[in-house]
């Protein structure tokens, strides 16, 4: 293929206009942050200047209100689970290594770092910036304003290296806890797996019921040839906490990466996942379930970028929206010109369970190669009245019948959660939030 024949559309720079009021708010926000902490680096200042502060006219932020972000800039002295009064391990019975971050600071006493040959795992602050993977033109820091904020202020997080061929014996639980009022926490995790290494991570976010603040988490992971990375990500934050999370995952040949996201609770949640598949034979899997209740907002943005031939990706997001809640799903599958024989699948199904709930879905395909199989489906509906009738005619109450349907509806997403204890706890917390007693009666595969 000659250069002139290459599509010019692919990386066409789009001019996204800055919005004066948003720029002012954003600048004031940064200035206020500077007053409460010192910036980790000035490396992202250029990007922060260049990128528009998100507002409704920026396509990626069309459905996502950010006004509530500007008020939370404080840092707090509460840095241990003991002071915060929360459990170090939020998942009962989970046998895992553990890193606990309270309000963005590593709590060494509550943590249990892995001691395993070939595994380097420590808080980022102990490692130093030089060891961190560099930022490039595709990194969230250079493409999204909020990620740029993370780059500027995020100083702590997980530093993980797994050597060639090493499989870590237990999962690593990364627990973030937020407490206090008006707080702003930024964390960044830096993960690299060498060839054929394997690791399972559980990212669990919690917040005190009195908490009020913002959390900005950025995870960068490089998955080398034949390596396997599995992330179970659970967001269960009480209080008035806004949570934005970026995952930037780069895959090499024959690697396997999975991220399973379940949003149990969260006032305002945005997940921004990007998989870049740079080696053939790789597989990416992204699943998610979100069940926002009254007043909650959940936004899932995903990008799967197929850059080379013979790769597969599978994506499945399920949403059930209760009360006056809003959901957003934006999935983008990108198949570059050389990525022949790509097989990409994307599914997004939503149920509106309340007349005040709304969903905005945008499943996108952008395809520049011809010998590919790409499909996506998107549905919005309600509980199947026939199924409800069937259950009720057999003596199951309406709410219980609905709970049953919910269990079936998000079952395939929950099933993807690798760590059984995490899955059970997620089910337990969902049932608790929505008052589904019936769930505890279900037989469990792992029991």
């Amino acid at each position: 293929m000659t250069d002139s024949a290459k599509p010019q559309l692919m990386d066409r720079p789009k001019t996204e206009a800055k919005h004066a009021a948003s720029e002012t708010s954003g600048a004031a926000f940064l200035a206020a942050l500077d007053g409460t902490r010192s910036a980790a680096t000035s490396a992202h200042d250029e990007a922060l200047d260049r990128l528009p502060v998100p507002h409704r006219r920026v396509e990626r932020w069309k459905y996502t209100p950010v006004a509530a972000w500007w008020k939370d800039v404080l840092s707090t002295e509460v840095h241990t689970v003991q002071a915060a009064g929360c459990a170090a391990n939020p998942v009962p019975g989970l046998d895992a290594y553990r890193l606990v971050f309270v309000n963005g600071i590593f709590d060494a006493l509550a943590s249990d770092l892995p001691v395993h040959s070939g595994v380097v795992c420590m808080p980022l602050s102990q490692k130093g910036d030089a060891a961190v993977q560099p930022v490039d033109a595709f990194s969230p820091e250079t493409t999204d304003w909020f990620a740029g904020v993370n780059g500027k202020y995020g100083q702590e997080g997980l530093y993980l290296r797994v050597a060639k061929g090493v499989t870590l014996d237990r999962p690593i639980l990364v627990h973030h806890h937020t407490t206090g009022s008006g707080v702003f926490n930024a964390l960044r995790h830096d993960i690299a797996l060498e060839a054929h290494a394997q690791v399972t991570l559980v990212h669990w976010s919690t917040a005190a019921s009195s908490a009020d603040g913002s959390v900005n988490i950025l995870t960068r992971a490089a998955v080398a040839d034949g390596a396997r990375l599995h992330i179970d990500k659970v967001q269960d934050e009480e209080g008035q906490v806004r949570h934005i999370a970026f995952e930037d995952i780069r895959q090499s040949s024959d690697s396997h990466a999975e991220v399973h996201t379940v949003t149990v609770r969260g006032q305002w949640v945005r997940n921004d996942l990007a998989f870049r598949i740079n080696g053939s034979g790789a597989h990416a899997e992204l699943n998610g379930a979100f069940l926002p209740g009254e007043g909650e907002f959940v936004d899932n943005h995903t990008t799967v970028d197929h850059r080379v031939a013979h790769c597969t990706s599978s994506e499945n997001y399920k949403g059930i929206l209760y009360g006056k809640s809003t959901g957003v799903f934006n999935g983008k599958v990108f198949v570059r010109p050389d990525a022949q024989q790509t097989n990409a699948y994307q599914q997004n199904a939503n149920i509106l369970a309340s007349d005040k709930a709304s969903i905005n879905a945008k499943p996108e395909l952008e395809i520049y190669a011809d010998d590919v199989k790409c499909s996506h489906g998107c549905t919005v509906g309600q509980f199947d009245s026939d199924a409800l009738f069937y259950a009720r005619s057999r003596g199951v109450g309406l709410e219980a019948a609905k709970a049953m349907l919910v269990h079936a509806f998000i079952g395939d997403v929950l099933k993807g959660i690798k760590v059984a204890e995490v899955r059970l706890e997620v089910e337990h917390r969902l049932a608790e939030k929505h008052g589904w007693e019936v769930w505890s009666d279900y037989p469990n595969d792992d029991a």
Partner: protein
Amino acid sequence: MAYDGKDKVLEEVTGKSYEFGFTTEIESDKAPAGLSEDIIRLISAKKEEPEWMLQWRLDAFAVWQTMEEPDWPHLNYEKPDYQAISYYAAPKQKKQLNSMDEVDPELRRTMDKLGISLEEQKRLSGVAVDFVMDSVSVATSFKDKLAELGIIFCSMSEAVKEHPELVRKHLGTVIPTRDNFFSALNSAVFTDGSFCYIPKGVRCPMELSTYFRINESGTGQFERTLVVADEGSYVSYLEGCTAPQRDENQLHAAVVELVALDEAEIKYSTVQNWYPGDENGKGGVFNFVTKRGICHRRSKISWTQVETGSAVTWKYPSCILKGDHSVGEFYSVAVTNNAQQADTGTKMIHLGKNTHSTIISKGISAGNSHNSYRGLVQIMPSAANARNFSQCDSLLMTDTSGAHTFPYVEVKNPTAQVEHEATTSKIGEDQIFYCLQRGIDAEQAISLIVNGYAKEVLNQLPMEFAVEAQKLLSISLEGSVG
């Protein structure tokens, strides 16, 4: 793949010349290039328009000056210089025509070349045609016969003069002036177009048709179509277009507004075959069109489009389902070849209860072209029991072309049922093999497969158009084996 004649056949297609690329040597009356209030006053004066119309244009111009050309479409083109275009070009006519026989013979020949010999069509297919060249409607056939039923079918400029109450009542109600950059531009400078009114309870006995042609160089075409179907009426409306082969990019920014009052039905079909530019992407028409219809109670609007031409297409025929039980449909086949780019789709805005919409979009990309579907399905809180089904399939012919899907689904009512599905694939090698095995050559096999693929949409077209569309499809794709 098994078939080795691929390159040869591909060359043939790219070498295929545009059939309608001739120009007509008609003296024309052309305004100087550029856009200003004076030009708008000139256009308005030339059209002998009433004062309210001029004011409407000037307001639109003021709005347009504050707007910016959209950057969000998935298109890559050099933005036209709006001051380098002549906004008015009319085939010169000495006097008001009384019958078809008085039409300039050159013009008649153009029509013949386009295969729309008006007389013949009158007799054979019973289609009433309004022919718009450059910016001015030059002939409308069958007018008297339609008038007997109370149907008004005439050029827009005539309607402004003779039916001001209807035009004033509906013009700009579906697509307000400030709707977007191109609709504002059109509102300021539109020169002609078609107007159609079907009275209460009348079923229009024949297809109404408009044929658009850009002839002059350095001009743009800005026509405006308004179709009003009064309560309980029915009309089927066809639209076709061609342009001469030129090195420059010509601009076509039309606005089409449909109003379907209670229990009315409008079927609007387009076969768009503007000059697509040469194989290197030089020349060709920029087709920036705003089309929208509003459905009142129990009414129905159905858009069918076959898009094969234009260098750049930006077009989203939409339905506002305002009335309860109204129905919106969108059927589209968009074919892009060589360096063509298309960003097309629809918007279905559900406001009324029990409203239904269907979207079937078939994209076919060949050469180095890019074909995008962009659609919005919006269910507002008031739209109880709304139902939408969308299907967007893309067929890729070459590894240098692109197929993209950008569907927006916004649902604010829990009783809604919305389904969207999209697939992208290339023509099945097994299907071609099956045909080859049975003595059908690759060329024909592709034509067969593509026609089968697009059948759901082609079936929606009126008979005369379906034949033309099928021919167009095979010409546009001849040999594009991928």
